């Protein structure tokens, strides 16, 4: 959807000095917005949990340690799944892999999107027009359906899921980067650097990249949320390797093995809360940064791809 000119939304006002000087910015955001703290806290919690999971996990996440669909008990706080595997351990282990998938897919998306945005913003003209056209087309085609058919043809595996999410979720990154690059390209200091003889690569690296840093971080965090969401959807449809444990395959196993008619709500409910928790955390944090960067990011920002739980939040204390 490109009814609004893409360049306008995220650009800083002409002449406005970007307030994006590294650390100070982030601390300010954290100080000003409670939601950012909560969001970051949640994200860190999940990362730490994933890192220590192998050490604090009460039971194995691959071996059977209880009865199939055992209900929650003092020994197994969240009961067991259809394979007799402890739910708590599964959720921790699943979190690890889900996060890895989220990060990896986002990495792919960032690389592609960043590259496209950079090229588009920096070189402009026909490069820009054609790349942005491609972006537009991809934006309209429904992503989950597209991913579903790609994964169905390619084969069910973790790597394929990562790649498939990555190659369809880069559009938002590309637009953001492009907009920033375009506006920054005109900055005085870039012109000065060029006058001094700096080549394109050097200009891109030294002058443009640092400025878009926080925006990239915000975008990354939001893309991670989207990636995790999509991973669960693909796993549910049977497009992920069922022998791998992710939050998505946990739901898929429960569904396939009649957890509902069994009454094994513990195989379903906690999993959803974990996923939602992480996504909300990413959302809060990413949102807060994007707001702080440009409070005038309002409704206009709908040009950014929807999957981003991205709203348009108002200013100052009204922001979410």
């Amino acid at each position: 959807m490109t009814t609004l000119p893409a360049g306008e939304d995220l650009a800083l006002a002409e002449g406005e000095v970007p307030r994006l000087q590294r650390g100070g910015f982030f601390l300010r955001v954290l100080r000003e917005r409670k939601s950012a703290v909560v969001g970051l806290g949640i994200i860190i919690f999940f990362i730490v949990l994933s890192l220590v999971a192998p050490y604090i996990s009460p039971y194995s996440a691959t071996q059977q340690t209880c009865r199939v669909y055992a209900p929650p008990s003092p020994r197994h706080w969240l009961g067991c799944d259809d394979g007799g595997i402890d739910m708590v351990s599964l959720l921790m282990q699943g979190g690890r892999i889900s996060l890895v998938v989220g990060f990896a897919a986002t990495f792919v998306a960032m690389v592609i999107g960043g590259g496209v945005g950079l090229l588009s913003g920096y070189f402009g003209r026909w490069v820009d027009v054609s790349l942005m056209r491609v972006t537009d087309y991809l934006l309209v085609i429904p992503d989950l359906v597209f991913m579903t058919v790609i994964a169905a043809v390619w084969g069910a595996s973790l790597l394929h899921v990562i790649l498939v999410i990555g190659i369809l979720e880069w559009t938002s990154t590309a637009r953001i980067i492009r907009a920033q690059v375009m506006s920054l390209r005109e900055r005085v200091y870039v012109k000065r650097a060029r006058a001094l003889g700096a080549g394109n690569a050097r200009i891109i690296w030294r002058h443009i990249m640092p400025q878009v840093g926080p925006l990239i971080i915000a975008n990354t965090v939001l893309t991670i949320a989207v990636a995790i969401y999509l991973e669960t959807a693909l796993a549910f449809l049977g497009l992920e390797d069922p022998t791998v444990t992710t939050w998505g395959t946990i739901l898929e196993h429960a569904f396939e093995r009649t957890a509902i008619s069994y009454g094994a709500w513990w195989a379903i409910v906690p999993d959803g809360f974990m996923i939602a928790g992480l996504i909300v955390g990413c959302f809060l944090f990413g949102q807060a940064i994007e707001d702080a960067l440009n409070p005038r990011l309002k409704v206009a920002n709908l040009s950014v791809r929807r999957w981003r739980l991205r709203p348009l939040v108002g200013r100052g204390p009204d922001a979410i």
Partner: protein
Amino acid sequence: MSGRVPRLLLAAVAVSMVATACGSGAGGSSVKQGGLFRLGSASSIDSLNPFVAFQQDAYSTFEQIYPMLVQYNPKLQFVPDFARSWQESPDGRTWTFHTQPNAKWSDGKPLTAADAAWTFSTILKFQNGPTANSAGTTAHMASATAPNATTLVVTYKQPVANVLSQLQQVPILPEHIWAKYATGNGKALTTFANPAPIVSGGPFMLVKYTPKQIVLFKRNPNYYGPKPHIDELGLQFFGTYDAEITALKSGQLDGIETVPPTSVGTVKSAGFDVHQAPGNYFDDFIINSNPQQEASHRELLNPLLREAFDYAIDRQAIVKTSLLGYGQPGSSIIPPATGHWYNPSVTPTPFNLTKAAQLLNQAGFKMGPNGVRIADGHPMSYTIIMPSDTTGGYGDRSFQIIQTDFKKIGVQLNPKNLDNSAAFSAITANHYRNFELSMWDWVPLIDPDFMLSVLTCGSWNVWNDTGYCSKTYDQVYQAQGAAMSPAKRQQIVYQMQRTVATQRPYLVLDYADLIEAHSKSWAGLVTVGGLSWCSLSKIPFESVHQV
């Protein structure tokens, strides 16, 4: 959820069947008449054309709407269906059937032996083309004629031991409807959709069919056999077991075909009649047995390797975790549920990882880096073809158990998921040279002939999914097919099972139980071969009645 089913198949044979007070469909006035029985299925019908269909639900449908010459009773004996009696000639080559007199199709036209003769002759005529799927049932048949309206004479080129078992599977079609499609090269036989309402000859008429959703039947007033007590019958298709079971529990269904292991407890405690029986069905692990297979994995032919794999499979765990105890560890390719055909001396190999490792060491396959053994210079890391029949249900769990255990003895399994057709293509590719391992399942017939035929050289590219081919085996198979003395035949069949268990083209994992359930407001739903809705008999739905 269909095991690979030979054209006309299946079903499990139960060892003990319950024949209820209503017996086999006797229309006693003491029994409540009328009603609609709503059945649920987690599978589907692929086609209503008997020459095209492959799904079990389609075959079971044909059983209800078309006459067959004979059928099974709950004790798995052959009893009359359209044929009231039959005789076999002394040389075993001519069979004479006496069919029901004054029978009619549901549209009023006469139903005679001529329809049966036409059906068999048509299958014979086009067996290399349109009717190839059914050709197995008329193997070695020479001719089928109807000298008069109630006599059918079938002649064979050589004595065939399992005539009744074969003919039981063939739905007799109304010649006056189908004849026009059998002209020319007969290709129209496979394109005719046979849409509802179907001209039927069985206890029920098919009146409505919405693909993937519902098929509805009404009692056939012109049926030659015992009238069903119920007026109407419906079969609803569900995408998932959960949906089906929820529908049962909330009273939207009266019975369901298959209860998955994880739901048995819930269904029982919800107050339904749950019927469990050993299944004529097995899950298997396939090892490429083609002596000409690619050198890169020819070590798979090594008997020590096969024995090691056998010991490395934890069948108890599979039965406990995948089947939740509703099954038995697997051994022979002729399941115990077939009754006297199963060779009891072929027992499940016990789970013993130490022994497995020992055998691999003995074969000279040393442990390499990364915990994977080296065999003939390359790592023991194999691609295992997983058809869609196997995945998505408890097959995933079974595979996970096997994969984890194999890892412990230094063998790596890499799954490759394919649809059934592509999986079979992958197995048969390059004359069975390429593939390494696979996991699939079988639903053998009650008569062992079919299952044994799968391993013959002649079944290459037809049903053989192992690459196994041995002249000796083929000879013994022929002998069993021609053995006219049941005792002699059983002996040969037992011998063949021992051979297969020693050579191990298949490692039989488990025999899954057949579990079905119905509401207590219905009675008389007997099972034949463990199932009431099946392609073995019309008796269950003739007998079922409201309480």
